[in-house]
């Protein structure tokens, strides 16, 4: 099954019908998606700013992460879950939309950046956990994260105006 065929199949599901046909289905899921966006990106930005040495500079990086992680996780689950539901209703249009493709690429960049940070940069966290200005590798991860999530938001909104 090709990606395009998968999109066609998704649009034929009951869930897709619920998103596109019911009066309040689409508005409610989009509202949940936007709230998830505020909760996830709105929280991850504070961890990124700590990595950049801009906020909570006397609090260890590990503690900032530990305190923010539950809110971030809930936000990302809500955002990706509701995004997947919206996608089922408009999979074909999204597949052909350049902003949707850019959005996915930017989400992948943010994900790879986070994975690289956790796999490599964070390994030596004990050495710089309490530094007010973390090392260049951590600051770079913070800057990439802020930039990529901001671009995800911009691409997401551009997508909704060019898809329908």
């Amino acid at each position: 099954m090709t990606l395009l065929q998968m999109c066609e199949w998704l649009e034929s599901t009951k869930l897709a019908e619920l998103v596109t046909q019911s009066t309040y289905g689409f508005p409610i899921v989009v509202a949940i998606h936007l709230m998830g966006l505020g909760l996830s990106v709105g929280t991850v930005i504070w961890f990124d700013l700590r990595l950049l040495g801009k906020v909570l500079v006397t609090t260890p990086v590990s503690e900032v992460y530990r305190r923010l992680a539950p809110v971030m996780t809930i936000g990302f689950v809500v955002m990706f879950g509701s995004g997947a539901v919206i996608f089922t209703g408009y999979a074909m249009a999204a597949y052909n939309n350049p902003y949707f493709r850019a959005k996915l690429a930017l989400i992948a960049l943010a994900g790879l950046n986070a994975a690289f940070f956790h796999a490599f940069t964070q390994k030596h966290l004990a050495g710089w956990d309490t530094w007010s200005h973390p090392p260049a590798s951590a600051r770079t991860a913070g800057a990439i994260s802020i930039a990529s999530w901001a671009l995800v938001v911009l691409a997401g909104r551009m997508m909704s105006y060019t898809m329908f």
Partner: protein
Amino acid sequence: MDAALTWYQSSALASAVGDSPTITAVLSAFHALGFTFIMGGALFANLGKLGVLFPSRPVPEMAVPGSRLIALGLVLSIPTGFLLFGPKAVNAAHNSTFQLKLLLIVVASAVQFGLLRRGTRAVGALGLTLWVGLALTACAFILLE
């Protein structure tokens, strides 16, 4: 008031926005980015004030940068929102959801920038409720207008 709204709606500026899907999309994208900053700042400042996020840290360590991020969000959202409002100014101004949205922006900003640093934890709860209420009202206005 209606005369001013009609004038703005029929102005060249409002027509330029209304006639160009690209301009509307770009404005809406930066409006959404502003929304994200406002939500992020509101969560950080008000959950900090409530002692939920970093209970051992002084409140200003969260309230000050949180309020700054909200201010940045407002700087992005208000001008873009004003431009997006142009092509539908008359109808939007008479829409009760839009009126509630404007009221919540004013009240939430007054609580955030006027009371948060001095008030008790209850101010944090009030601030958070107002900003979340604003976000929900904004969603309702976009989707149900």
